[in-house]
C-alpha cells in the first residue's frame, strides 16, 4: 500500500516537473519575443547592400514570418530535439561552449559549495545545540552580518585586500592572484593538465572560493540553526533526554532527522545554483565559468547563449527540487501516508 502511494507521488511530481520546464521555456520565449524591434534589423546593418530578398530568406530560415503559436512550436521542437543554436559571437554550438565553461564552474562552485554546506551544517548544529552560548551568539551574529552582504562587494574587497602589496604596511600579508584561473604568463595560454598547472589552478581558486564560501556558509548555518532549534524544543526531545540518552544521541537520532527537511530544500537550491553559475564572483575574478560567460554574453547581446543559460538554470532548479522532494518522501514516513 505504502509502496503504491509512493509511486503515485513520484508520478505526480514528475508531471509537475515536465509542466514547469515547459512553462519556463514558454516564459523565456515570450519575454524575448515580445520585446520591441525586429530581429532581422538587429542582424543586418541598415544599409542598402542587404536586399529585401536576403532578409526574406532569413525570415524564412528562422520561421519569423509565421504566426506566434507556430514560432513557439518551432522553439519547443528545436529545444527538445537538441538544436540549441550557435553563439552569435563565437560561431560555435551553444552547448559546446557551455559544457566547456561548466568544467570550471563545477570545479570552483561545486567544491566550495559542498565543503561549505558541510561546515555550515556543523556550525548551525553546534549553535542550536548550545543555544544562547558564546559560540551561538558569535556565529549567528557573524552569519547575519555576512548574510546581508552583496556578494560582488565582498568579492571586490577580498580581491583588493589580497592583491595590493603590503596593505597598511603588513609585510607578512599573503598575496593572491586577483583574477583568472591559472597562471597564463608562466604556463602559456593553452590549458594543459600537469602538476604545477594544477597547483596554480588551486592557488587562483582560493579567493573566489572564499567569497562563495562566506555567503553560502552564512545561509546554511542560519537555516540549520533555526530548524534545529525548532525541533530541539519539541516534547519528544525532552522525552529522549528523560530516557537517559546522551546529548549526542539525542542530536543524532532525534533532532537531526526531524530538522532536516528545510536543510534538504536549501541544499538542493544551492546545488542547483552551481549549474546557474556564480555570476557575481566569476565576473569579479574573471573566472571562465558559466556565470562569466553569461555576463560576457549580456554585454555582447549574444541571445542564443543567454536563452540557453536561462533554460538550463531553471531546469537545474526544477530537477534539484524534484530530487529534494524524493529524498524528503523517502526519509519522512508521514509524507508517504498523506
Amino acid at each position, binding site marked *: 500500500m505504502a509502496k503504491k502511494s509512493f509511486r503515485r507521488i513520484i508520478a505526480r511530481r514528475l508531471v*509537475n516537473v515536465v*509542466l*514547469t520546464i515547459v*512553462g*519556463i521555456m514558454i*516564459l*523565456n520565449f515570450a*519575454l*524575448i519575443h515580445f*520585446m*520591441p*524591434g525586429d530581429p532581422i534589423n538587429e542582424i543586418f546593418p541598415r544599409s542598402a547592400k542587404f536586399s529585401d530578398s536576403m532578409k526574406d530568406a532569413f525570415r524564412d530560415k528562422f520561421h519569423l514570418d509565421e504566426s506566434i503559436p507556430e514560432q513557439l512550436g518551432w522553439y519547443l521542437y528545436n529545444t527538445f530535439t537538441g538544436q540549441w543554436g550557435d553563439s552569435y559571437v563565437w560561431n560555435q554550438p551553444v552547448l559546446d561552449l557551455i559544457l566547456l565553461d561548466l568544467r570550471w564552474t563545477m570545479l570552483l562552485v561545486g567544491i566550495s559549495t559542498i565543503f561549505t554546506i558541510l561546515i555550515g551544517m556543523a556550525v548551525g548544529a553546534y549553535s542550536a545545540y548550545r543555544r544562547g552560548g558564546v559560540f551561538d551568539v558569535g556565529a549567528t551574529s557573524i552569519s*547575519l*552580518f555576512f*548574510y*546581508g*552582504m*552583496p*556578494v*560582488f*562587494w565582498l568579492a*571586490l*574587497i577580498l580581491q*583588493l585586500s589580497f592583491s*595590493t602589496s603590503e596593505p597598511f604596511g603588513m609585510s607578512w600579508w599573503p598575496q593572491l592572484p586577483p583574477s583568472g584561473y591559472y597562471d597564463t604568463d608562466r604556463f602559456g595560454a593553452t590549458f594543459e593538465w600537469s602538476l604545477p598547472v594544477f597547483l596554480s589552478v588551486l592557488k587562483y581558486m582560493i579567493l573566489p572560493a572564499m567569497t562563495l564560501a562566506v555567503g553560502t556558509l552564512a545561509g546554511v548555518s542560519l537555516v540549520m540553526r533555526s530548524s534545529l*532549534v525548532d525541533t530541539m*524544543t519539541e516534547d519528544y526531545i525532552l522525552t529522549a533526554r528523560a530516557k537517559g540518552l546522551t546529548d549526542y544521541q539525542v542530536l543524532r537520532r532525534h533532532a537531526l532527522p526531524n530538522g532536516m527537511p528545510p536543510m534538504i530544500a536549501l541544499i538542493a537550491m544551492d546545488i542547483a545554483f552551481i549549474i*546557474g553559475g556564480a*555570476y*557575481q564572483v566569476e*565576473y*569579479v575574478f574573471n573566472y571562465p565559468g558559466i556565470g562569466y560567460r*553569461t*555576463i560576457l554574453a*549580456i*554585454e555582447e*547581446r549574444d*541571445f542564443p547563449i*543567454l536563452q540557453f*543559460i*536561462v533554460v538550463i*538554470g*531553471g*531546469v537545474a*532548479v*526544477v530537477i534539484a*527540487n524534484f530530487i529534494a522532494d524524493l529524498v524528503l518522501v523517502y526519509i519522512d514516513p508521514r509524507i508517504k501516508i498523506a
Partner: protein
Amino acid sequence: MTDIATRRAFAAFAMASVLLMSAFVLIHAQPVGGQLSSPPFACHASFLAAEGDPVAEAGENITTYPNEHITLNGSGSTGFEGSANLNYTWKVKYQSVTRTLYGMMPTTVFNKSVTGTGVAEVNLTVTDSLNRTAWDTTLVFVVGRPPTWLQEHGLEVVGYGIIVAMLGTAGYVFGRRYLAGEALVSPAEKEKAHLALSRWGKIFRQLVRNPMGIIGVVILLFFVGMAVVGPMISGDVKTVQQGNDFLPPSPDHWLGTDNFGIDIFKELLYGARTSMVVGVFSAVIASFLGAAIGLYSGYAGGMKDEIVMRLNDVVLSIPWLVLMIIVAALLGEIDLTGIIIIIGLTGWSYTARMVRAQVLSVKERQYIERAKAIGASDLSIIRRHIFPNTFPLVFANTILTVAISILSEATLSFLGLRPEGEVTWGTMLSFASEASAFQIGLHWWILAPGLCIVVVVLGFTLLGYALDEILNPKLRHR
C-alpha cells in the same frame, strides 16, 4: 448607505491616505527627470586669422534636445578681396566618432537632427582656392528635456489630492453624523481604537525587549532619518562637474569625488533615499502580489490552485537576474520606477507560497465553517477571517523582502542594469568598480556604499526576524 459602511469607508480611506502620504513624503523631494539640466561645460574655439588667410566662423554654441533639428549658419571669407572661391566642409564629432558631412558640398548651412544626449562637436573648415584652410568649432549640447509640469508637480498634485480627499471624507462622515444627531465618535469605535492601540503597543514593547528587534529598530531609525534628511543636505548630485573628477578625500569632499566630479559623501546621503525607496516599494509590490495570489490559490483550491502553483514553480526556478538583464538590454534604458517594478514583479513567489500554506491551515478551522453556515460570502470570509490571520506573517515577510530587494538593486546595478539618471548605493558601487576605485586611492567610494548596504540589510533582517518571532504563533512560545 449604512453607518457601518461609512465607517469602514472612512477607515479604509484613512489607512490608504496614511500609506500614500508616507509614500508621498518619501518621494516628494526627489527631483524628477534625472538628465543633465544644463550644459556640463562650455568651450568655444576661435582662431585669429593671419592676414591673407581665410576665416571660418561656425556660429555660436547651441543647446538642444534629442531629436530636434538644428541649423548652424556658418560663414567664411578669404583674406583677399575678390577671391571668393571657397569650399566649406562640415564635420561632426559625436560620441568620439567623426563624420564628414556635406563633404565637398560648398554650403555654409549645417543641418542635422541629433539623437541621444551628449555633446556634438561641429567643425567648419573653409578652404580657399589656394588650398589654405581655416576652421572653427562649435559645440552642440544635446541635453535631456526639462521635466514637464506634470512630471515635476504630478506627485504634489496626487499628494494634495489625497489630503483634500481625506479631509473631504472626514468632513462628510462627521457632517452626516452631526446632522443625524449622533455622537461623532461612537463608543464602539473608541473601544476598537483602544484595543488596536494596545495591541500594537504590546507588539512594540515586545519588539523593543527583543535584542534583535531593538538593534534592527535603531539601525533602521538611523537610515530612515538619513533617507528623509539626506537628499535635502546633499543638494544636486546629478550634474556632471567637469574637471572635478577623482579628487582624493579632503575637507571639501570628505570621501573624495567620483568619475563625474560629484562628491561621494553627498551621493551616499542622496542614495540612502533612492535605495530605501527601491527596497520598500518593490517589497510592497512583491508582498501585495504574493498575498493576493496566495490567498486566491489557497482559498480557491482544486484546479485553480494547481495552475497558480505551477506558475509559481516557473517563477521560482527561473534565473531572474539573467532574464531581467536580457529584458533590460532589449528595452534600452530603464529608470528607477522600472527597477522597482522589475524587482517587485519577480519577488512575489516565495510570499505566495507561504501565504497559501497559511490559508490552507486557516481554511480548515471551525469558525470558517460557521461563517459559511450563516451565509457569509467568500470575499467577506477572506477579508474578515483569513486575511487577518495571514497578515502578521505577510508583514514580517515584507520586512525581510525589503532587505532582499535592496540587495537585488545593488546586484542589478553592478551587473550593468543601472537605473537611468539616478544615484543609488548600487550605481555608486558599479561606477566605483568600473573606475577601479581602490587602485586610484578612493577606497571609500567602494567601502562606504557597500557598508551602508550591509548595515541596512542587517537592520531589516533583524527587524524581520524579531517581528516573525513575535507575530508568528508557531514560534511564539520559544
